[in-house]
């Protein structure tokens, strides 16, 4: 039975109130009060120009975008086959794959990040293995550089990609693929001409959601990255905690929020399979 708009709103009300009290009000207050501290509109604009065009912010924006892109591409490449497998199997195999993807998320991001540090460190398991196998002469730097950040973030973001792709793939009518096969298509043609175009909206949605999450990352790059891998979220934290320059933190937040909301607007158009096809 479809719910009336008023009953839908009523059901959403507790969640909306919580979100407003814990998120919208504080962030609004933070942004408005910090930026108002700067004085007149003219002063605000001058400060904004200074902050956003400064080298540190520029570099961190480029870093954030670059890392976000690489991580998104990697999760897509790793996630697509996994999602495909997940959409084709049933029963125990399905549960097993799903558990492998979701189970690690029952522990906190920090614990998992430390676990990666144990694996990737100079004396970590991976380096020990590579040395023992004689593949490398001296330990490889896998941590405190871009490689470390990318490995860590790809790992954390993979399930978002997998589950988004899975939803799109599950919605493909298997009879369409059988029909294509019956009409003379080879397995490669079935994939390229039927399956891929029908799951494209899922790919777009997965890419956007992964990228949106990636550009706001803080814990993983802070713990696994080096001094050259400063992302916008880390810079914001630094402005608040260390230099205590709240107005500048607020301006950066506005930029990050604007990018995220823009991407989300695009995402919401692709989240509906019907929309993407129009």
């Amino acid at each position, binding site marked *: 039975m479809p719910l009336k708009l008023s009953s839908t709103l009523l059901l959403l009300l507790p969640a909306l109130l919580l979100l407003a009290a814990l998120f919208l009000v504080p962030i609004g207050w933070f942004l408005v009060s910090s930026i108002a501290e700067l004085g007149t509109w003219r002063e605000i604009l001058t400060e904004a120009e200074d902050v956003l065009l400064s080298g540190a912010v520029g570099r961190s924006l480029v870093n954030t975008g670059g890392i976000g892109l690489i991580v998104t591409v990697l999760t897509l490449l790793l996630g697509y086959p996994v999602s495909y497998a997940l959409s084709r199997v049933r029963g125990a195999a399905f549960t097993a794959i799903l558990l492998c993807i979701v189970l690690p998320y029952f522990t906190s991001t920090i614990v998992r990040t430390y676990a990666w540090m144990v694996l990737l460190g100079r004396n970590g398991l991976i380096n020990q293995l590579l040395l023992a196998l004689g593949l490398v002469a001296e330990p490889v730097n896998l941590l405190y550089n871009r490689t470390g950040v990318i490995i860590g973030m790809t790992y954390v973001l993979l399930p978002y990609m997998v589950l988004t792709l899975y939803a799109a793939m599950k919605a493909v*009518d298997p*009879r*369409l693929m*059988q*029909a*294509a*096969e*019956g*009409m*003379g*298509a*080879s397995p490669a*043609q079935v994939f390229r*001409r*039927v399956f891929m*175009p*029908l799951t494209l909206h899922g790919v777009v949605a997965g890419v956007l959601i992964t990228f949106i999450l990636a550009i706001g990352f803080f814990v993983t790059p802070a713990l696994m990255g080096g001094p050259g891998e400063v992302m916008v979220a880390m810079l914001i934290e630094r402005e608040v905690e260390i230099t205590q320059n709240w107005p500048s933190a607020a301006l950066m937040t506005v930029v990050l929020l604007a990018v995220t909301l823009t991407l989300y607007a695009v995402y919401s158009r692709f989240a509906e399979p019907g929309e993407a*096809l129009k």
Partner: protein
Amino acid sequence: MNATMVAEGAVALEGVTKRYGAETVVAGVSLAIAPGEFFTLLGPSGSGKTTTLSMLAGFVMADEGRVMLGGRDMTHVPPRGRGLGMVFQNYAIFPHLNVAENVAFPLTVRRAPRAEIAARVTEALEMVKLTGFEGRYARQLSGGQQQRVALARAIVAHPRVVLMDEPLGALDKNLRYHMQVEIKEISRRLGTTVIYVTHDQEEALTMSDRIAIMERGRIAQMGPPRAVYECPDSTFVAAFLGEANLLPARRDGDTVAGPGGAPLLAGTGTLTAPEGRLFVRPEKVAIATAAQTAGPNALPGKVRHASFLGNVVRYAVEVAEGNLVLCDTANGAGTTIHAAGDRVNLTWRAEDCRLLAA
């Protein structure tokens, strides 16, 4: 028969069997279909007709037996090697392709030259009367139009054999009749062999050159529509193909004892045991007032219901031992309509009834 002698378009199944676990879904089905024949697999759901078609298509591999297409053994050839045209249940129109691209699909995947694809698509759309719809998508088409797209796509590559799996199941009755006529027309014009699966007996009777009625994985009976309708070999076939009176009957010397021991004459039949069923179609039964006596096959009874259906009046007449006999009378000129409670005599010709195993 020498393989090279068999024409393209001939289809044969030789003792084909399919099992899923302990269940045998198709049990040793053999049939031979001539080029250009319109052949229907008819049966209730679960009778194995769709699995049989899937084995012809190559979606399901037979456990035993051989699948022959145009005289070549195709038992282990995947679908794309079989070169068949197909119309699927629910049409399977690709939602991301427009009408022209959908129809072109079988040619595109075979890498036909662009000019040839364009010409064939135009031709196929003309044949199904969808010229002008090239740029539309499935969601912009009605059920009947989608059905036409599926049909055009099945014939666009000029296959010798087209398989159709309940293609009209989703259409309303009027549209269905139109499409039946059109499918039949197109298949005749192209001279393609059509293997058609349906559970609708009326559809099977109107369209087919021959019908195979399937029951629990086997072919219960096979033959031209009129033959299987008028001379069923089993009570299953008799009851599945339209209305049938199946009265208890017992052999009694040269005659048959019907309900209440009434002596009856039966033309033919498959009954070997002493007791079985006497089969007669409702439209073969004549109804007369009790005063008029008729020939040898006469049963006295009392009208229980008379349903006026317009062109036909259907009576349910209670005869001896509480048996009901259905009797359809054409509402012709000057027909008397009997009322419930009237005493009547039912008669039919010996050649219109058969003795079948119960």
